[in-house]
């Protein structure tokens, strides 16, 4: 039986960041990843010779290297990675689309969003400017009880439609709650998306993950793939041993679990209290359709934006749909639409919609395949109305459902943004067990990685 100072469960971005941080200061650390490759939610796979990315539409929190206090640059310093050598591509621009009359574009320059708000909602521009000032000065990391972002925004903006339009991208990119979001969460997301903005690293998510993995290993960190955890052995109210599905036992001083709180609870209780785990399972999950199109059909489509966040439902509501998928709202992403990316012979169009896990779970194998086809057609009909028809031109297509997400990420109910009940400080009922990642309220790739770093700083470095 091997033994480690720390065992980290999950080789996604929060687990890798936590591992790098520990290995950097000489701790003996092991990451256990149940799949054959790292990345978790943000990973990749190959089909017909194409590398397809999962999860990543864009990274948030863009900041130039000289903005030292920016989250992205703090993260790089904490991981001892060179920010200057990390080459980034900023978004072109993105749009929040509710109708032809109600459409707001934004980029990594807040000036664009401000001028758009002034154009569409001239009566609200002063209130919008005041909101931006408030977001800039508000510290969202103080531990506060949940506050309704909608209540605050009704008060601050006094404009229901503008409020909903601003909320929509932030909810789609990281809200585990239905209908509303926590105001602190709103502030974190507003800063990440509207004040800092979208970018992607040069290269693929595979390159990014390999860079992190190489760095982790060069610092002495160890990782094991295809090593799913079965349960913890708990002695004197401490996790004493991590037991793998294979039966192998690994001794540990401390454990950081990035598997999500429901899965972590199951490791603790060996399935004795599934009801408790249910309480921590989120309801928001998604379907994503990846379309590969020949580059020639770009000019026939509205395809000069990076991301279009559209909603045609009136009234707007962010929630689990009553049907398998709600195609009336979603995210249309062109992952090639970032500054200075090389144009290939094909391009991707990724479309994401809210979806209902329970309905997808209820389908038998044949019906499941049928429903995937059916909803893909319905999706392309609605999206085609916005960007032009592309359905006949698709050369390759793949669809993820909430079931796919649950299978590959371990997130209960395919709820990628985790539980509505956030364990902000990462502590659990077991003194040497901490959780990091999406169940803590940090969002996006930068957020997930900062979560791993912060848990190590707060619970391992400060305490030992």
């Amino acid at each position, binding site marked *: 039986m091997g033994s480690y100072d720390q065992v980290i469960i999950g080789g996604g971005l929060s687990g890798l960041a936590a591992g790098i941080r520990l290995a950097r*200061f000489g701790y003996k650390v092991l990451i256990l990843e149940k799949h054959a490759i790292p990345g978790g939610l943000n990973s990749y796979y190959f089909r017909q010779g194409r590398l397809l990315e999962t999860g990543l539409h864009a990274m948030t929190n863009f900041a130039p290297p000289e903005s030292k206090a920016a989250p992205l640059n703090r993260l790089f310093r904490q991981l001892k990675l060179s920010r200057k050598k990390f080459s980034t591509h900023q978004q072109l621009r993105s749009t929040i689309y509710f109708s032809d009359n109600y459409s707001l574009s934004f980029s990594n320059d807040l000036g664009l969003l401000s001028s758009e708000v002034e154009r569409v909602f001239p009566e609200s521009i002063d209130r919008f400017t005041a909101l931006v000032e408030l977001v800039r000065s508000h510290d969202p990391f103080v531990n506060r009880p949940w506050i309704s972002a909608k209540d605050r925004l009704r008060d601050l903006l006094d404009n229901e439609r503008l409020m909903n339009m601003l909320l929509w991208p932030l909810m789609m990119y990281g809200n585990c709650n239905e209908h509303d979001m926590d105001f602190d969460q709103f502030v974190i997301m507003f800063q990440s998306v509207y004040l800092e903005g979208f970018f992607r690293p040069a290269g693929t998510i595979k390159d990014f993950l390999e860079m992190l993995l190489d760095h982790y290993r060069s610092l002495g960190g160890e990782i094991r793939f295809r090593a799913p955890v079965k349960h913890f052995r708990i002695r004197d109210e401490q996790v004493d041993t991590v037991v793998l599905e294979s039966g192998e036992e690994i001794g540990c001083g401390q454990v950081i679990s990035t598997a999500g709180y429901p899965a972590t609870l199951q490791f603790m209780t060996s399935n004795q209290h599934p009801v408790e785990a249910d309480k921590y399972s989120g309801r928001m999950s998604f379907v994503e359709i990846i379309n590969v199109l020949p580059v020639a059909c770009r000019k026939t489509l509205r395809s000069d934006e990076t991301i279009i966040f559209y909603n045609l439902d009136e009234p707007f509501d962010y929630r689990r749909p009553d049907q398998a998928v709600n195609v009336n709202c979603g995210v249309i992403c062109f992952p090639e639409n970032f500054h200075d990316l090389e144009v290939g012979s094909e391009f991707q169009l990724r479309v994401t919609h809210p979806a209902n896990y329970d309905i997808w779970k209820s389908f038998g194998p044949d019906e499941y395949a049928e429903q995937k086809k059916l909803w893909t057609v319905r999706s392309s009909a609605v999206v085609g109305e916005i960007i032009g028809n592309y359905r006949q031109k698709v050369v390759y297509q793949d669809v993820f459902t909430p079931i796919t997400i649950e299978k590959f990420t371990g997130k209960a109910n395919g709820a990628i943004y985790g539980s509505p009940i956030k364990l902000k400080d990462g502590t659990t009922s077991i003194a040497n067990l901490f959780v990091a990642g999406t169940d803590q309220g940090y969002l996006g790739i930068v957020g997930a990685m900062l979560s791993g770093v912060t848990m190590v700083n707060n619970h391992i470095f400060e305490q030992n």
Partner: protein
Amino acid sequence: MTRDEIKDVILEIIQDIDEDSEIENLDADKPLRDQLDLDSMDFLDIVMELRKRYQLQIPEADYPELASLTSCVNYLEPRLKEV
């Protein structure tokens, strides 16, 4: 270690945390954080690096002792005497 050696170690650690930090113009008696754009996360790295290199445990209550270069040297001098 002598006071000068300790000072060099601190500067080296800071440079290691942030390759762009301008350590040449540091005022040894003024707070490091104000002069170097360091936040509390970076600051923790100084503590961790001292722990890694010299097995020196600095309790959180003592962090204020590390505020300036001079106070760092004062604090570390007796603790790194044997190193």
